């Protein structure tokens, strides 16, 4: 038997523990928020005064006041579009195969699953080394737009596969069964029903993967894209530059004015990433449906 006072003490202790845990969790959130806030405010204070239409539309220059990010901005867009074109068909294809065509509990599919998850955690510089060896050297693509996009496509492929698998898995089996019952073949069931239903989920995953690729620097520096390039890429096999590399390059300069340029570049990059993320959230909310 526990007495009334003992019970009260126990309850009080549990309430206190509750409070402590709540505070610890809140601190966790606060640290993340403050870091993000400080980062954004710092970049905004330094960068916003430098932002102008001219900054967005001028080419690179050695004079800080004349330098713009047009080439880098367009380069980023090209790289991102190409990366998506390469990684989405491959990633979604792999996800369909893994979810719809293999026995999920088989040993091989488990091994593949673990490996894909591991690949998603490999540091990006490793992909850069792979890209340098495979695309730049062996395939002789040189430091071109295509080599950069292929490297980034490899980098985001695991993310695309994982999110596409999740989206496909969330389509209830009853839909497939209904299709089969009406005489649909496997591919018909997938292409007419599963894919359209999973489409918003896949799209969200793709956009998140893409917004990661927008900010990647290390693998591109590894394949040798750290260059003075004044013009946007003029072909798949032409040299290119992207926003993060431009920022990296400017931070390196001895002149302090370039740091302001870098801050302005960061603001633009943040805006691009935020836009992509907002698009992902918007699409998710727009097309999300509950199955019951």
């Amino acid at each position, binding site marked *: 038997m526990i007495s009334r006072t003992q019970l009260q003490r126990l309850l009080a202790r549990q309430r206190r523990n509750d409070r402590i845990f709540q505070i610890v969790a809140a601190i966790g959130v606060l640290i993340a928020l403050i870091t993000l806030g400080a980062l954004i405010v710092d970049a905004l204070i330094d960068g916003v005064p430098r932002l102008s239409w001219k900054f967005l539309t001028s080419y690179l220059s050695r004079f800080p006041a004349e330098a713009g990010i047009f080439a880098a901005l367009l380069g980023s867009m090209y790289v991102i579009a190409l990366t998506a074109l390469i990684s989405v068909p491959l990633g979604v294809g792999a996800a369909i195969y893994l979810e719809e065509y293999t026995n999920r509990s088989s040993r091989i599919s488990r091994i593949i699953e673990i490996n894909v998850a591991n690949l998603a955690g490999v540091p990006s510089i490793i992909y850069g080394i792979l890209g340098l060896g495979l695309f730049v050297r062996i395939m002789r693509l040189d430091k071109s737009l295509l080599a950069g996009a292929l490297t980034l496509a490899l980098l985001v492929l695991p993310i695309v596969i994982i999110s596409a698998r999740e989206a496909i898995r969330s389509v209830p089996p009853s839909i497939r069964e209904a299709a089969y019952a009406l005489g649909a073949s496997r591919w018909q069931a997938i292409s007419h029903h599963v894919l359209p239903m999973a489409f918003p989920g896949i799209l969200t995953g793709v956009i998140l993967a893409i917004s990661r690729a927008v900010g990647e620097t290390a693998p591109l520096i590894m394949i040798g894209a750290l260059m003075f390039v004044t013009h946007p890429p003029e072909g*798949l096999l032409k040299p290119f530059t992207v926003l993060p590399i431009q920022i990296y390059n400017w931070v390196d300069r*001895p002149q302090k004015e370039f740091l302001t340029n870098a801050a302005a570049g960061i603001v633009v990059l943040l805006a691009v990433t935020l836009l992509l993320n907002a698009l992902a959230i918007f699409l998710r909310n727009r097309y999300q449906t509950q199955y019951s």
Partner: protein
Amino acid sequence: MPGLQGVLVHAVQDAPPTDASLGLYKMNCQTVLRILGIKHLFGGIFRWKRGEWFIMFMKFRWFGTLALLLSVFYSGCGDDSLLVEVDGSSTVYPITEAVAEEFQKENPTFRVTVGISGTGGGFKQFGRGETDVTNASRPIKPSEVELCKKNGIEYIELPVAFDGLAITVNPENDWVDYMTVAELKKLWEPEAQGKILYWNQIRPDWPSKKISLAGPGPDSGSYDYFTKAVCGEEGASRGDFIASENDNVLVQAVARDDYTLGVFGLAYYEANREILKLVPIDDGKMDNGDGAIAPSLETVKNATYQPLSRPIFIYVSKQSADRPEVEKFVEFYLQQAKTLTEEAEYIPLPEETYQLILRRFQNRVTGSVFGGKGSTLGVSIDDVLRGDIN
């Protein structure tokens, strides 16, 4: 198209029953596609229901594939002939960058890219024939000569400016008035690693504070040159110091700590004068002036700042030089070098020297004046001139 019909019915049935979806249900497939096409024109993409995306995708997939193939084909066929690729030393980069910018302003159809991989990294690519021109802050080394020979690359060596390696400390450091080359050697030689850790180990009346060092990283030509000049052999150096191929990192290291000694290009000192203090260097020889001499535009130019001043180069592949855009770029480089070198805070060669170097390029004189031996000490403008005349 029964497949599309299936998707459509499915899409409509699963979507919330709004007026639009009920309307869609009543229309036949062809009409829907037509309307979707019009919607697409008006940018109504975000009003689409789930599934309609997919219809658009299915409808345009062949078109999209065709367009993609065509664009790949088109861009793959684009001619590379107007591109000049430059890579190499970060020390020479500011000059080459300025030249590239001005060159492209005058010749808008030409493209020049300039990379930063360090002198060693630059020569590796140059020797494989991946670049047309490479920036170098020291003459070509035997191993690099070998690589060029193996791949049949003939190179034209063109000095473009002079640079001094500056020894700097923090402005708070009031005890260092000058240093001798012997003291620098004692501090940087391989045997110093883990042993020479305090300022008073170099000179007894200096404070017994821990010294920290910042210098060029092993992939840079400055590292090769500095170790050769101070320790007598390329690459002979202690390893326990802040090493970076990026001179700005070194500037920051010195500016933030009272007890750090830094080594980097003079141009980077000039750009950060107010946060650094320059250390004059005494090489212990009389012929280039007595006592300790601080690097400046003047002392590097008249070769009294020794042994840490050196010529910097570009190397042009002879095969590439036959392409008109490379030829034009290099000629432009040598014509503009004097102005642009000064602007980038480096020390230009005399006007006549640039004329001689231009002639050297026009005559396509290959090989290195330095015999392909790498870093060479005590090279003055006279030596460069003589090399060109021979």
